């Protein structure tokens, strides 16, 4: 049976009771009569179990999506936490503003973006999403309403940014948008071979706002670590700022589990690498395909079949970033498992205000694989240990496998988060990496 709420990876699959929040005043009254733990959730676009809770009470927030204030001079936007980034863009783009940081999908909520302290292609210049959240309200299960900013309840402000939804329910938040004059992105795609070419392209693009690379992880030998480096800036040439059309495509059914294998993905990767015929192409591109190429088809995760997909994302600090990345990608190539969406990026120095924020200076690699328990779990577990050996850490929003000792080593500050955690709130992730009673201390 289909569970009532799924994460984007559709793994693990948990039963839960849904009690949607429609109004800012609904929490904590909604918990009356609920005996299990609870967790506010948004669009379910995190991949693992940070947005799940086995046999718990999930509080979907997407009906709580009202705009509460907008200053056209400063770009400060205040909205309820269940608004999606897509809805913010629909409002902001025609008014000449854009998100200060955006992930690879616009179908995430404001509250979810804060709770996971998400990052985007401009991390090297803009930092994380939390860097642009000026204030928000946190409501605790005892009914206390806390106004949080860098100066007001600064400890709760820090604990909530990247706090995985455990410190309370965010009812509204204020975000500093940034001005644009066009929907378009001045885009360049550059083919590269190997990590050193990637690093030198990164260095040359240090002043360019958005950079990210797709890499072909199925190729070995002379094509090992070939990829396309993509860079872009908002176009400075004024052009019409129309809202985006609504997506019409829906991935209609689940592909059978064997459909994505090393041969089909390998063929795709070769095609994708050579999609651009020249070593370097430049174009003016709308922001939709630049930032959200996969949002064009709703439910694209069905491509991975019933079992779902696993995401894996590490950051390895500069000290071991180069050797660690080569070693991990060799491990992936050796495993024979295919990953479509292999993404490589360099994180910058901008520090997040969040206590548990994932990014730190170094190289980040994101991979995804269809779930094949014996093979993909084994590979994941190897990659997680390698990440730990190289001094890196994994991203909770994209994890369904890291062990409690690994999490506690990656994020030694977890004990501090536990002190700010709301006793009524918990998540599948938290119970896995800390234990059901972990928050009680």
């Amino acid at each position, binding site marked *: 049976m289909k569970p009532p709420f799924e994460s984007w990876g559709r793994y693990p699959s948990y039963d839960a009771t*849904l009690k*949607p929040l*429609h*109004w*800012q*005043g609904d929490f904590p009254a909604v918990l009356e009569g609920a005996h299990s733990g609870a967790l506010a959730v948004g669009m379910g676009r995190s991949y693992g179990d940070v947005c799940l809770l086995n046999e718990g009470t999930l509080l979907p927030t997407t*009906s709580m999506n*009202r*705009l*509460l*204030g*907008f200053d056209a001079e400063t770009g400060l936007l205040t909205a*309820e936490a269940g608004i999606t980034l897509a809805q913010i863009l629909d*409002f902001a783009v025609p008014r000449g503003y854009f998100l200060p940081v955006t992930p690879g999908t616009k179908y995430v909520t404001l509250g979810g973006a804060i709770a996971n302290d998400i990052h985007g292609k401009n991390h090297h210049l803009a930092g994380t999403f939390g860097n642009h959240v000026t204030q928000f309200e946190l409501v605790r299960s005892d009914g206390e309403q806390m106004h949080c900013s860098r100066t007001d309840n600064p400890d709760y402000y820090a604990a909530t940014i990247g706090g995985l939804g455990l410190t309370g329910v965010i009812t509204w938040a204020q975000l500093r948008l940034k001005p644009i004059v066009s929907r378009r992105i001045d885009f360049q795609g550059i083919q590269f071979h190997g990590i050193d070419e990637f690093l030198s392209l990164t260095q040359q693009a240090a002043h360019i706002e958005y950079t990210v690379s797709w890499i072909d992880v199925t190729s070995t030998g002379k094509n090992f670590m070939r990829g396309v480096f993509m860079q872009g800036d908002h176009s400075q040439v004024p052009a019409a700022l129309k809202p985006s059309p609504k997506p019409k495509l829906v991935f209609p059914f689940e592909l059978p589990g064997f459909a994505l294998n090393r041969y089909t993905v390998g063929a795709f990767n070769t095609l994708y690498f050579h999609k651009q015929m020249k070593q370097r192409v430049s174009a003016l591109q709308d922001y939709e395909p630049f930032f959200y190429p996969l949002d064009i088809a709703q439910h694209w995760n069905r491509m991975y079949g019933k079992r779902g997909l696993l995401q894996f994302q590490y950051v390895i600090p500069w000290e071991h970033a180069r050797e660690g990345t080569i070693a991990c990608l060799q491990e992936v190539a050796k495993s024979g498992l295919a990953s479509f969406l292999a993404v490589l990026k360099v994180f910058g120095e901008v520090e997040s205000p969040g206590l548990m924020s994932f990014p730190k200076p170094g190289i980040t690699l994101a991979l995804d694989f269809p779930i094949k328990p014996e093979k993909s779990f084994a590979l994941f577990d190897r990659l997680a240990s390698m990440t730990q050996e190289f001094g890196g850490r994994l991203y909770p929003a994209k994890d369904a496998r890291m062990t409690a000792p690994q999490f506690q080593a990656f994020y030694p500050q977890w004990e501090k988060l536990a002190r700010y955690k709301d006793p009524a709130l918990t998540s599948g992730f938290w119970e896995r990496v800390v234990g059901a009673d972990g928050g009680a201390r």
Partner: protein
Amino acid sequence: MSFDPKLQKSEPQLALRYVPESEGEAASSQPDGQRRILVLGATSGIAEATCRLWAARGDKLFLVGRSADKLNAVAADLSVRGASFVDTTAVDLDDCSRHAEVLSHAVNALGGLDVVFIALGVLGDATEAEHSFAEAQKILQTNFVSVVSLLTWLAGYCAQRHHGTLAVLSSVAGDRGRKSNYVYGSSKAGLSAYVDGLRNRIDREGVSVMTIKPGPVQTAMTEGMKGSSKFADVETVAATLVRAIDKGTDVVYVPGIWRIIMGVITHIPEFVFKNLNL
């Protein structure tokens, strides 16, 4: 919100016969295209989604609902989205004795009236209402009696000025009594009949009266109902309503497929229908 006693002096007469225009307020649409819209039951899912579209085109909105907190949240959202005017009154519209005061205040605040959208309604507890007259009465009061009271005043006001659109949210559930929810259904059946009749009386006075019959829509009202994930999307319903209200369509089924579904359902013979589980 407190009422300015001065405003109430200009309260229009309830006379339903034709009275020549006597007040200074504009009877026709505002010249700049902003329409003056009164929304009753404004915190309902369908009303809020519809108001967002009106706000985006700069209309003037007056919202009436039960909860001041909810009205404030909706009003903030609508003014950010571009409504040229938003004001609210929190009142329990089950209390019909307040209607004249609330409506005249709203009309004065808007400076006239182009559209009224009546979206109050409760689903109630169908099983409870089978046995408890108190529950049945509550459903009938909110969905039918209160709306009749509101429409009596509003029809008088609009007919007097030969201007206005009265868009009333009924339901497909009113097209035929069904065992699963007949108290709600009968409240909506009564409402549909009342609104249809009202249209036949005052359409010739230059007032559009619309019977709106939504099928099940994904809102707080239908949350947790079986199959609710397949219900119509509230934003699509709102877009249809905005277009229909612009045109003043007499009877609107949203989504349109429900006109056909209900056409079939109302033609099933009763000896068959009574053995179905609808």
